[in-house]
């Protein structure tokens, strides 16, 4: 989750890729001691990051291989998590992959449109006197510790979602996804976790998108308005195309948090090793939540098994980030307001 936002600080990344080769060649003649120290320090920082990443990956792979060799069932398709059973250790990540991806997907579906709306309101609609404090408020939300979200979710959100759940069950129950198997049971489900995660990632996506929207060249906006566009048309033709890579990378940052959220999920979700498409039913699990709950009493195989699940989360996060980078790179010429 520590990976840098792909392409978020647009100005800096682009400036460096464009100008650095030129600048370096012009400076080659008169290098001073300060230059070489600085170059060594920055190159060292870069190498250090690579070494740390490699060390994490190597450690996870080593410990995982120990556990997976001991697993008597398929690591990818098993539902249960019982690694410390001496006779027959069996554990698998099927439930965890499903729960992690589904809860994060629900969070993104809810959070991204709302976040874009808030960001546009702050950058283009609200009067400056309101926009400033409102922006601070959103930033403040990002700083609330996740245990607070977890407690709020468990003590407030879950008891108050019963009505929404039975409404969804009544009108959308035919979709299978929104069918309630145990009406009246507390709503400690993947759906609730998705809603909670949406609230948690909202400030991140909002804050980054807002900054991107603010950097839309004034000329583009004024050109659109001069051509007779309304404000909404101006946003659609000038702001959103320019901001699209930024929105994508903001969403990926948020998705990273949603995938890796630990304690809030552990507080709210009723964990079980049941894989069910009934999203409103209590049960399921996520990688981070499973690690948090099982680590305390895990034996040696159990700890390694949790490392193996951590490795899978690591890989999923890398894939997600890679995908985001590819999307941003492909969109570059299109957004291309580089004037």
């Amino acid at each position, binding site marked *: 989750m520590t990976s840098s936002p792909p392409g978020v600080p647009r100005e800096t990344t682009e400036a460096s890729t464009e100008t650095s080769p030129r600048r370096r060649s012009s400076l080659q003649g008169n290098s001073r001691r300060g230059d070489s120290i600085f170059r060594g320090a920055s190159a060292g920082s870069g190498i250090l990051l690579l070494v740390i990443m490699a060390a994490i990956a190597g450690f996870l792979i080593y410990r995982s291989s120990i556990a997976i060799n001991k697993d008597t069932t398929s690591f990818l398709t098993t539902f249960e998590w019982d690694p410390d059973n001496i006779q027959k250790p069996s554990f698998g990540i099927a439930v965890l992959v499903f729960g992690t991806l589904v809860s994060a997907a629900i969070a993104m579906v809810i959070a991204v449109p709302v976040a874009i709306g808030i960001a546009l309101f702050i950058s283009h609609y609200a009067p400056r006197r309101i926009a400033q404090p409102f922006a601070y408020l959103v930033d403040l939300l990002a*700083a609330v510790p996740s245990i607070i979200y977890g407690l709020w979710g468990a003590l407030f959100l879950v008891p108050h979602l019963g009505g929404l759940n039975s409404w969804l069950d009544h009108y959308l129950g035919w979709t299978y996804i929104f069918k309630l198997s145990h009406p009246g049971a507390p709503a400690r489900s993947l759906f609730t976790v998705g809603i909670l995660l949406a609230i948690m990632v909202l400030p991140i996506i909002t804050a980054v998108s807002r900054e991107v929207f603010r950097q839309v060249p004034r000329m583009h906006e004024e050109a659109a308005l001069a051509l007779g566009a309304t404000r909404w048309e101006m946003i659609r033709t000038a702001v959103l195309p320019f901001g699209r890579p930024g929105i994508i990378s903001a969403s990926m940052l948020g998705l990273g948090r949603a995938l890796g959220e630990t304690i809030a999920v*552990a507080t709210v979700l009723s964990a079980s090793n049941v894989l069910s498409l009934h999203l409103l039913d209590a049960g399921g699990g996520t990688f981070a939540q499973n690690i948090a709950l099982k680590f305390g009493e895990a034996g040696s195989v159990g700890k390694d098994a949790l490392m193996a699940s951590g490795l899978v989360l690591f890989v999923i996060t890398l894939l997600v980030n890679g995908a985001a980078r590819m999307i941003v790179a492909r969109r570059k010429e299109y957004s291309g307001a580089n004037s």
Partner: protein
Amino acid sequence: MKLQRNGRSKALAIGAVALVSSLSLAACGSDNNNSSAGSTGGTGGSSTSAAAIKCADKQAPMLAAGSTAQGTAIDVWKAAFGAACPSSTLNYSGGGSGAGVQQFNQGKVTFAGSDAALKATEVEASKAVCTGGGQGIDLPMVGGLVSIIFNVQGVDHLVLDAPTLAKIFDSQITKWNAPEIAALNPGVTLPAADIQAFHRSDDSGTTQNLTAYLAKASNGAWAYPAAKTWAGKGGQSAAQSAGVSAQVKSVPNSIGYAELSYAQQNNLKSASIATGASKPVDATAVNAATTIATAKSAGASNPNDLALSLDYATKAEGAYPIVLVTYEIVCDKGNKPETLDTLKAFLNYTISDAGQHAIGDKGYVPLPKEVSDKVKTVIGTLS
């Protein structure tokens, strides 16, 4: 420019939130301390315990690790012992029984706290640490009970037995007015509502004890072996005893299990257990002590190993069956010489009446004399 300004304001915001949350947390913390200090002061436990502590001749700081189930008990003892003998500090890191035993067998800690007695392989491994022909032994130290907590409107007193309990937790009985429950509770109006059963989502010694009881006493209704990981079907799960008791408290028509202290703190009602005795047994410390007193030796080859085999199927009058005993693990011979005196002084205090009563206020079960006398004898022989 804009980015920079925002960065600073964000840092400020983070600081403000951190401050606010730490302030409010501090307020919660001091609240708790006050109330607990009040309760111990009320029974006069703290003043008598200070007098009962005999410091070691050669005081030394100790390290220990293990079971989180006895963490609160160790905290109480550590405070009293540290106050009486300032040079004998104890640093107990929880982290689970398994981790505690592992660290003990690596020679990193003076003693380990464990929910389960040492296994044969662990005893073998301990011989490398306990020099001079010694080995790791189990000393029963902290007793407890698992109470069946419930929250059913209009029901103040609920009686259950092991087969019924097993079926409730395995989703074979799903309504409160099921005939099995009604038969045990004549004259009680049970609602026709669904049972919301809660179990632990994390692995836990509490689950192990409950399932050991169900496996032993339910005549096959509980089809799973005793395990730290919950195996029953259906129901919902919550993290830690605190999570389970919070759920039972807030969800109507619910049932769950937790240590006695959580039932007391949350004002939750505990079910009485029909064991086959003349009347159902309430979940109280006294009734739990009755069961622990009848526990037999687990039959370790070393006579100094006092591991107990609890009689979950007990039918004795006033004996609450779902009990647990956790152990301190030390070397019988070959403890580290620099901490041996302090270790003996500490254990002598914890097994004393004063020590056991001090944790009785915290929802633990003071060990009965039958057990504590044996432990005292063994502590005297440690070397």
